[in-house]
């Protein structure tokens, strides 16, 4: 028997992350609430660019995912890892670099996103300097984690740690591959992938960010905090093994289910569908192992708010991971895609699974670290009930809104007309649902505030244990191999092999889907008439990105009669080959814009940006007066042309010197047309609006569909 050693767990770093979790929970949810209310009262942006929905939405998603849940992950990992391995964290310095590094990234995000500095890729909006910072901090986290694992006193790694390892390696791969971009300036870059390839890489990333940032680390936390809080053994070791490996292998394939019925090739879509359906069982493996661990403790679930939160979290996880595969079935996706159904679905996951599990952990962790009892069980119960109510009030109206709007989009009259030819009718119809959703969000938010009050009171009455003493025997030099042990025990003793095995498994799916898309040309059939954007259109496109227009407008017409009647010929993959990044969007709060070009006169767009309600009465789009006021900043234009040429856009040689002159010429033409229609502005050709109009008028016009002849 080895000698028993005494050591200290580092609670100080856990406390830091716990405080950050609470702080960013409030910020992230508050921004979400503002966005929800802006859908009802667009004027809530107060007429300033930085608070407009298009810029607020990515701020909300990033804050909720990377700030709130991110800090929640680190809090749980730093607490559980030390205890599961019977050792202190590898390095105090690295722990603190990790903490402060991550918080400064969040602050940078909170500054740049409202400024419109974005790469427009969902959940990867941050520009390249911040991407590099994220990579560095993530590596620091990795070193700290593996350092801790390597100096462990426990021979075997518990299932929670398998999930942490898979999380770390997969996020590393995803983050790097999705952010390969060539800088134009410190605040702007272009992706190396374009159009449909970019779309595939992006959704491979975004889907697996959900999988490996919102799911696997939280499963790891569940595997530690649930049995600790319930004081029950894990239901099935075998189930842990099978569902862990199956989950990480299958999850990575499912990305294309975000692109069903788009111009992604059919084979890739089908892979997305079947792997999503196959994902039900591995996902439910986690739910089962959680819920069945509570066998024999259900009487306590009724009394202990910690367990209550965890049970609802796991149930929400089970619901969301069943719904996800259902939404990946093409005929269901035909209804759900672009609607609020998706928004409802993801909030079951985030509010229910991530939110409630985090709350459960906080209620369990804070009193323990402060050597006291929770200040008020009653308040925790209140939080539980209003939180649950909040989720219901949030999600159910959005499900309704999604179904109603989708069916309205698709309804035809017997004589062959769209019953609701005006998109706005379908928006007006679901406004009451938006009201209820905002109410649900408010309720949930109030619950969070109640929790924070309760925890602050708990912290005040307790005494913090910064270094918690513990004892454990040193790890034996030789492997402690039992005869007849389970085969999986082997890899549980070998963190490096575990890392490599996970890496191989998660790489397979990505490679099989992405490599052919990038390498084999027939996957993106060329269309001869598709030409690069003119400098003015390119500038307009970057403004479209800056304003976050893609938060509400898709640019992807699906091959349905209801869409081709409403928007025009369905989108072809060859039309997007110069799109860096792709701007297909994922939600239609407003209509699709892929065939917007030529639909209205220039002056219509001008007036529409002054006041959307004047052209579309009842519209919930905010006005964009600054685009009429601000002059184009063309300082980076030549560099943009250079970067794009380098990436393969066929501009003529030396075009970067010609670009500004061409831009001014086209701007003057548009300004001329606007003046004829009565726009009075002596500097019109210099305004940003002109570039935006040029871009909008170009959209979808490269292939000229036959004009309607009936």
């Amino acid at each position, binding site marked *: 028997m080895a000698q028993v050693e005494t050591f200290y767990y580092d609670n100080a770093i856990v406390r830091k992350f716990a405080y950050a979790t609470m702080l960013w929970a409030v910020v992230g949810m508050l921004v979400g609430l503002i966005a929800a209310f802006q859908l009802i009262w667009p004027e809530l942006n107060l007429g300033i660019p930085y608070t407009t929905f298009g810029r607020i939405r990515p701020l909300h998603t990033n804050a909720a995912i990377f700030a709130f849940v991110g800090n929640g992950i680190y809090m749980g990992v730093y607490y*559980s890892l030390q205890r*599961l391995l019977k050792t202190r964290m590898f390095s105090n310095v690295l722990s603190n670099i990790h903490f402060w590094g991550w918080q400064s990234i969040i602050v940078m995000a909170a500054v740049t996103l409202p400024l419109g500095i974005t790469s427009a890729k969902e959940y990867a909006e941050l520009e390249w300097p911040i991407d590099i910072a994220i990579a560095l901090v993530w590596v620091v986290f990795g070193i700290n984690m593996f350092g801790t694992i390597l100096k462990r006193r426990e021979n*075997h790694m*518990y299932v929670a740690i398998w999930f942490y390892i898979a999380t770390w390696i997969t996020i590393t791969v995803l983050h790097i591959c999705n952010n390969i971009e060539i800088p134009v300036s410190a605040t702007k870059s272009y992706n190396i992938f374009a159009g449909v390839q970019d779309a595939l890489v992006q959704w491979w990333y975004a889907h697996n960010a959900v999988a490996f940032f919102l799911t696997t680390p939280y499963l790891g936390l569940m595997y530690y905090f649930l*049995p*600790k809080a319930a004081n029950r*053994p*894990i*239901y*099935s*070791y*075998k*189930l*842990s093994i*099978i569902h862990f490996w199956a989950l990480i292998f299958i999850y990575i394939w499912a990305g294309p289910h975000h692109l069903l*019925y788009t111009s992604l090739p*059919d*084979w890739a*879509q*089908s*892979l997305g569908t*079947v792997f999503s*359906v*196959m994902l039900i*069982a*591995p996902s439910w*493996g986690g739910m089962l192992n959680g819920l*069945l661990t509570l066998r*024999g403790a259900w009487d306590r679930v009724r009394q202990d708010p910690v367990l209550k939160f965890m049970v609802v979290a796991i149930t929400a996880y089970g619901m969301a991971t069943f719904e996800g*595969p259902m939404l990946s079935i093409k005929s269901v996706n035909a209804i759900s895609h672009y609607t609020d159904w998706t928004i409802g679905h993801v909030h079951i996951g985030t509010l229910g699974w991530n939110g409630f599990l985090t709350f459960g952990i906080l209620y369990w962790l804070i009193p323990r670290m402060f050597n006291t009892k929770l200040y008020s069980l009653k308040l925790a119960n209140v939080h539980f009930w209003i939180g649950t109510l909040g989720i219901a009030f949030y999600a159910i109206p959005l499900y309704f809104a999604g179904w109603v709007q989708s*069916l309205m989009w*698709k309804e*035809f*009259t*017997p*004589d*062959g*007309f*769209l019953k609701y*030819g005006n998109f706005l009718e379908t928006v007006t119809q679901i406004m009451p649902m938006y009201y209820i959703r905002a109410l649900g969000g408010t309720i949930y938010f109030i619950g969070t505030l109640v929790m924070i009050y309760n925890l602050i009171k708990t912290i005040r009455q307790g005494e913090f244990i910064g270094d918690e003493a513990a004892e454990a025997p040193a790890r034996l030099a030789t492997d402690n191999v*039992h005869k007849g042990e389970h085969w999986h025990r082997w890899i549980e003793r070998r963190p490096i092999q575990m890392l490599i095995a996970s890496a191989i498994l998660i790489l397979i799916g990505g490679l099989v889907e992405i490599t052919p898309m990038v390498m084999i040309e027939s996957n993106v059939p060329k269309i001869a008439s598709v030409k690069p954007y003119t400098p003015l259109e390119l500038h307009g496109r970057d403004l479209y990105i800056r304003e976050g227009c893609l938060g509400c407008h898709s640019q992807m017409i699906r*091959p*349905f*009669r209801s869409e*081709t*009647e*409403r928007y025009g010929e*369905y989108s072809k993959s060859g039309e997007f080959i110069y799109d860096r990044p792709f701007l297909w969007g994922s939600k239609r709060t407003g209509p699709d814009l892929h065939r917007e070009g*030529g*639909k*209205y*006169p220039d*002056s*219509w767009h001008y007036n529409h940006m002054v006041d959307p309600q004047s052209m*579309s*009465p009842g519209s919930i789009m905010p006005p964009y007066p600054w685009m009429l006021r601000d002059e184009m900043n063309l300082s980076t234009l030549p560099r943009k042309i250079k970067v794009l040429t380098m990436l393969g856009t066929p501009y003529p040689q030396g075009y970067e010197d010609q670009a500004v002159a061409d831009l001014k010429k086209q701007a003057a033409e548009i300004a001329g047309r606007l003046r004829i*229609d009565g726009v009075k502005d002596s500097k019109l050709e210099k305004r940003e609006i002109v570039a935006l109009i040029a871009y909008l008028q170009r959209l979808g016009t490269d292939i000229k569909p036959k*004009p*309607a002849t*009936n």
Partner: protein
Amino acid sequence: MKKNKLIKQLILTTLVMFSSSMVFAQAANTSPTGATQASNSFYNVLLSNGLLFFAGLTMLGAVLALFHLLNMMIKVQQLKIYQEQGIEAYVEKVKATPSSFWMRQYKAWTNVVPVEKEDTVMMDHNYDGIKELDNSLPPWWVAMFVITFALGVVYLGYYHVLGGPSQADEYAAEMKVAEAAKATFAANQVNKIDEDNLEASTDPKDLAIGKTIFSTNCVACHLSKGEGSVGPNLTDEFWIHGGGIKNIFKTVKNGVPEKGMIAWSAQLKPADIYKVSSYILTLQGTNPPNAKAPQGVKYIPEEAKTE
């Protein structure tokens, strides 16, 4: 005892027959509407099938409830018999009774070691006090995994090996069905409206509808009095694409895409285009304030020219 069983079987058979006949009756009811809707859209079919499914589910629930009730009645009957025969017969019966079908199924599909006996499957793992049990994989879960995997193979096989329809094929098929339905509908219309046989309507009812259509669709560009802003002034006698009901009808219907006028044929029925065109003609000579300057040429009707 035998008598009881016989009664049970009899009632059950009648119930099943009854319920199945109900389902058939429903199917017969929905089929004619289903046929007309099939052309309309897939979602209506989905809806009707969904309703049918829920109806079936409710029916099944009712049957189960009745079955449960029946079981209870039989149990009560048995209890009476045991009361007559004494406790020994009852004990013997309990010993002999195999667990129910559902209980056996439940056990087989969950295959779980009861909490009281979990020491038998407790592993020697201990991580910070967390222990692990060696319960087997839930068989129903394994079955679900296998089925989803098989579905995946079938799906990929059908669409990518056996040549199932691509999404472009599906679109073409959808459009074909829609065209056919539209043609059938048009053929059954008595008053076919076409730009070749038009006279401007003066019917106040038509003009009122025309006005509503105008104010929801046209005012964004032509303004509420037709004085024009983005689009041309509609109140003067100058027309870019020709005045008179036939030309206006044509312009509204087909649009002038290069100048930003939408082809309204996708959103407005011919009858509505006719009504709004007729309404537009009533704006002639109204001289609203701030009207846009005349564009195009002065329109002289055909009749006037020939005179």
